[in-house]
């Protein structure tokens, strides 16, 4: 870790909000995208990212080694994701909207401009939706190590620290996830030849 970053973390630990803003600038996008890949909902990902940074601000003083800040932040994000899944599992399933609509009921009015922006068009394009489907098909245990390793380029030891599993178990899960992902993306990979 660069000394400049360590200094920012030290200042944020002392309660400097401006230093914490710099931390958000540095890690916000990565945490947001990690959560997005896990929960597959932009709205939930944005809410959870806010929670992650709020928790990080309040708990930063308890972090003993500033060098492990990134893993620590990812661990908070992972806990938030798991908590959301637990909450969702305990919530009663929503009723189908069409069931609720009686006779004479007005259909839901869509917002005036519901067209996706260019970024969303790419995300919802064919390859984008295949990637989303591929991630959704992976069990949570495999999905988290796959996202951290393949997309976020974290080292095995960092991933092992984040998910709290042994290095060997992490390596095995990454391999299994990669093999499953490759099966899903085979057609696109062959096109790239």
């Amino acid at each position, binding site marked *: 870790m660069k000394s400049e970053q360590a200094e920012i973390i030290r200042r944020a630990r002392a309660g400097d909000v401006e230093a914490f*803003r710099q931390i958000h600038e540095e890690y916000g996008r990565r945490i947001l995208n990690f959560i997005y890949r896990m929960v597959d909902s932009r709205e939930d990902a944005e809410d959870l990212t806010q929670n992650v940074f709020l928790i990080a601000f309040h708990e930063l003083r308890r972090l003993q080694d500033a060098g492990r800040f990134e893993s620590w932040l990812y661990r908070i994000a992972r806990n938030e994701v798991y908590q959301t899944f637990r909450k969702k599992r305990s919530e009663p399933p929503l009723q189908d909207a069409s069931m609720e609509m009686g006779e004479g009921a007005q259909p839901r009015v869509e917002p005036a401009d519901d067209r996706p922006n260019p970024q969303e068009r790419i995300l919802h394009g064919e390859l984008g939706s295949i990637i989303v489907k591929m991630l959704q098909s992976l069990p949570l245990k495999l999905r988290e190590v796959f996202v951290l390793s393949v*997309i976020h380029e974290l080292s095995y030891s960092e991933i092992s620290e984040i998910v709290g599993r042994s290095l060997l178990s992490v390596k095995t899960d990454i391999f299994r996830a990669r093999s499953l992902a490759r099966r899903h993306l085979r057609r*696109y990979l062959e096109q790239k030849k």
Partner: protein
Amino acid sequence: MKTAGNHPEDLLSYVDGDPSDRRYEQIRLHIDSCAECREEIRLWRSMQEMLRAPEFEIEVPPLQWPQIQGRIDSHPRGLRWREKLAFLWSTRWPAWSTAFAIIVLIAVTVSGFNYYKQVEADQMFAIAIYSEAEWLRIRAADNPFRNLIADSAENPFARFQVTDKGNPSAIR
């Protein structure tokens, strides 16, 4: 060494550039001479490139930081009791935490034992007072049943002899 065909997982540390694998160098040399493994690695790397493409990432909304700051301002950071006592379960001080737990355990045990002893002494004192009062009542001169009570088998104080004149003799 037939890595790609038999054990494709062996290529993982090479693809991820993890030199901590003891066989890293051996695998690297093998890849130089094996077209099948090179192809396998190319596929894995192109999958990585595809997934890491920035167009598949979402942007941080511009209002996110102001919202976080607003929440920080509305919940200023203060020491909670859990943080004040954090040193007790801090991994840095396991010996202190253990010593504290042992002291608490000893204190609880000693105070519990003392309390038990005190309750027992109070009970004994109450029995003694009751015995004394009962004895005085039996031997009272105006008690016409004093002999009956004193001789009764149900009388817990039967071991005391009461004479005709109502004077107790010594304990048998």
